[in-house]
C-alpha cells in the first residue's frame, strides 16, 4: 500500500482547558474518533489513529507540538486548531512541511486569504460567513437599522466591517457603534447607548463570554422586550446552552450546523450525545466532517501522500452530516450553506437542547468569499 509508515495518524490540536474549551475542546476529539469509527477504523487497509493535544491557546506550544507531530510522530494531518493565532501558526508549519491541515475552530478569513496554503483547508465558518449570514439576512427580515457593540480589536472590527457591508448592501443603515475594550464584564453602559440609538438591531461584534454577558445584561435591561433585536455575530450552541433560554431568547445568529436540522443531523447528534452527554455544535460536527472527508480523499487517492490527498480534497464534493452541498475552493475554503437561526423562548422550547428556530438559509456562494475575492496568492484566479 501507499500509506506512509503503515498507518494514518490524525492530530486534533485545540484548546481543551482555556477560554475556547467549549467551542470544540475534548468533544472535537470525540467527534474525530466517531468519524474514524464510522469510517471503519481502516483506510486502504491501514489503521487510522487519532491523537490530540491541548495547545492552551498558546501559539508556541501549538507550533512546538505540530512540529513534533510531523517530524517525529508521523502525523499526517492536523485539524481543529481553535483560535486564529494558533491556526495561522500551524498552517504556516504545515505548509512548510507539506502537510495537510484542516481548520474548523478559527474564524479568520486570512487562512484562505493572504496566508492560505495549498495544503490548508478551512471548514465550518469564518468571519465573512457570519457577517453575511446575520447581517444580510436580517435586513431582509426587516432589521434595516443597526447599532454595533464591537470589541475593540482586529477581530471585532472585521466582524463589524464585513457585517456593515452586507447590511448596507441590502439597503440597511448603520446608525452607530460603540467600541469597548476586550475583557469588559459590564455591558450595561454600552447597551444603554445602543438602546438610545433607536436602532432595530443591535449587532454584537464579539465572541465568547463577552457575547454571553452582553446578551444576559440586555435581557436584564429589557432591550429585547423593548422591541430591539440582538444579533450575535459569533455565537454557538454551547454558549446558548450556557446562557439559558431565559436570557438568550430572541437572539439571532448564524451557524453552519444545527443538530435538529434534519434526520441525518439528528441521528448523528443522538450518537454524539450518548458519548458526550451534550449535543454537537458547528465546530464539532465540522471536525467530524473534516476527518471523514480527509479519509475519503486518502481512500480515493490510494495514498496518504500530501499532494495527492490535497488534490482529492480540492476536487471532491462534501456531502455528509455537516453539509449536503459542500465544495472546496482552490484557496482551501470549504463553501457550504449557512443558516440563520433565532433562539427560542423557554415556552417555545419543547425538549432538551431545543434551542433554535430556523429563519433562513444563506447559500454557500454568498456566505463565503470566492477564490477571486479571497486574496489567496495560490488560488485559481
Amino acid at each position, binding site marked *: 500500500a501507499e500509506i506512509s509508515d503503515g498507518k494514518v495518524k490524525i492530530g486534533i490540536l485545540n484548546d*481543551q*482547558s482555556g477560554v475556547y474549551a467549549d467551542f470544540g475542546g*475534548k468533544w472535537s476529539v470525540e467527534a474525530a474518533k466517531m468519524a474514524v469509527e464510522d469510517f471503519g477504523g481502516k483506510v486502504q487497509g491501514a489503521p487510522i489513529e487519532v*491523537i*490530540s*493535544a*491541548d*495547545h*492552551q*491557546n*498558546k*501559539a*508556541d*506550544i501549538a*507550533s*512546538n*507540538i505540530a*512540529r*513534533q507531530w510531523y*517530524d*517525529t510522530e508521523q502525523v499526517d494531518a492536523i485539524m481543529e486548531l481553535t*483560535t*486564529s*493565532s494558533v491556526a*495561522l*501558526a500551524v498552517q*504556516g508549519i504545515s505548509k512548510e512541511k507539506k502537510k495537510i491541515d484542516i481548520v474548523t475552530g478559527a474564524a*479568520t478569513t*486570512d487562512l484562505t486569504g493572504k*496566508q492560505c496554503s495549498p495544503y490548508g483547508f478551512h471548514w465550518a465558518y469564518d468571519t465573512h460567513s457570519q457577517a453575511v449570514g446575520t447581517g444580510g439576512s436580517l435586513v431582509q427580515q426587516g432589521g434595516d437599522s443597526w447599532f454595533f457593540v464591537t470589541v*475593540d*480589536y*482586529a*477581530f471585532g472590527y472585521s466582524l463589524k466591517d464585513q457585517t456593515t457591508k452586507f447590511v448596507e448592501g441590502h439597503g440597511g443603515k448603520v446608525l452607530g457603534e460603540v467600541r469597548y*475594550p*476586550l*475583557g469588559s464584564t459590564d455591558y450595561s453602559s454600552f447597551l444603554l447607548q445602543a438602546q438610545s440609538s433607536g436602532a432595530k438591531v443591535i449587532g454584537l461584534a464579539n465572541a465568547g463570554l463577552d457575547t454571553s454577558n452582553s446578551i444576559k445584561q440586555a435581557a436584564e435591561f429589557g432591550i429585547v422586550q423593548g422591541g430591539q433585536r440582538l444579533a450575535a455575530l459569533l455565537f454557538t450552541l454551547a454558549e446558548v446552552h450556557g446562557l439559558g433560554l431565559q436570557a438568550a431568547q430572541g437572539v439571532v445568529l448564524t451557524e453552519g450546523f444545527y443538530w435538529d436540522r434534519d434526520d441525518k443531523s439528528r441521528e448523528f447528534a443522538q450518537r454524539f450525545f450518548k458519548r458526550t452527554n451534550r449535543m454537537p455544535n458547528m465546530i464539532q460536527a465540522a471536525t467530524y466532517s473534516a476527518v471523514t472527508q480527509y479519509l475519503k480523499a486518502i481512500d480515493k487517492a490510494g495514498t496518504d501522500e500530501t499532494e495527492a490527498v490535497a488534490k482529492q480534497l480540492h476536487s471532491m464534493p462534501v456531502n455528509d452530516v455537516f453539509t449536503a452541498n459542500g465544495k472546496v475552493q482552490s484557496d482551501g475554503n470549504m463553501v457550504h450553506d449557512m443558516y440563520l437561526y433565532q433562539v427560542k423562548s423557554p415556552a417555545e422550547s419543547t425538549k432538551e437542547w431545543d434551542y433554535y428556530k430556523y429563519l433562513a438559509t444563506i447559500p454557500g456562494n454568498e456566505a463565503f468569499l470566492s477564490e477571486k475575492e479571497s486574496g489567496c496568492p495560490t488560488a485559481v484566479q
Partner: protein
Amino acid sequence: MAELTLRETPARTSARLEWTLVGLGILALLVAPFLVYPIFLMKMLCFALFACAFNLLLGYTGLLSFGHATFFGGAAYFTAHAIKVWGWPPEAGILLGMAGAALLGLVMGFFAIRRQGIYFAMITLALSQMFFFFCVQAPFTEGEDGIQGVPRGILLGFLDLNVSMNMYYFVLAVFLIGVFAIWRIVNSPFGMILRSIRENENRAISLGYSVANYKLGAFVMSATLAGLAGALKAIVFQFATLTDVTWQMSGEVILMTLLGGIGTMVGPIIGASLVVGLENTLATSGFPVTIATGLIFMVCVLIFRRGIVGELYARLLKPAKD
C-alpha cells in the same frame, strides 16, 4: 524574626559548585540538539534566559515584578515587526526588541520603584495589564492573529537561520552571553550596591547612593535581558502573539524561578526547562495545565521554598558549613 528566604543572599560557598554545574550544563547543551527535539530546546533556552533576567531583579534586588511579560512579549512584537514588515536582518531586529524592552522597563520602572514589596508587585502587574490592552488594540500586533510568518533571515549576512542547527547554536550563543551578562551584573561593583540597598535601604541612602536610580537601573537591565529572550523567541517560532504579554506569562516566569531556586544562577534555567517540559507533556495528557501549574506553585511555596537548586545547595553545602 521573619525568615526572608526570598531575599536571602545566595550562599557564597556555592560558587564552585555552580561553576561545575555550569560546565556540565554547557556541554550538555552543545550535544543536546542531537538527542532532543531542537525547537523544544530553543524554546527552553528562551524561557531560561527570560527567567534568569527576571531573577536578576527578584533574586538580587528583592523586587518581585509581576509584569515581566511586558518586556518579553513586547520585545517579541518589536522584533517580529521589524523583521517582517520593515525587512530588517535578525540581529537588528533583536537589538530593536531589546531597546524597546529597555524603554518599556524605564517607563514601568519609573512608576513602580516608588514602592516596595507587594506594592511593587501589584503596580507592575497593573502596568503590564495596560500594556496588554495596548497590544490587543494596536494595529501592528495584528490582534489575536499575532504577527505570523516572520522570516528567520540570514544572520549578519552569512548564517542562514532557516537551518535548524544554525538557529539552535545561535540561540545557545545568545543564551550564554545573556546569562553571562547577568552573572557579571550580579557580581560587579554595581551588583554590590544593589545588595546593600536590599539589605538596608536607608543606610545606603545615607552613604550617598541614589537608591531609586540603582533600582531603576537594575529594573531596566532586567527588562532589556527579558526583551532579548522575547526577541529570540519571536525568531525561533517565527511569530509573536498575545500570549507572551498576558499576566499569566508573568506568573509563569515567577513559577520557573521559584521552582528552580530564587537567587541562584542555575535555578531559573532548571525551573524554566521543567515548566516548558511540563507544559508540553501535559498538552497531550488530558490533565489541565492550569491545575498542574497552580499545584506546583502551592507546593513550592509551602514546602519547597528554596527551589530545586536551592535545596540542592542546602543539602550539598551543609556538611561543608559544619
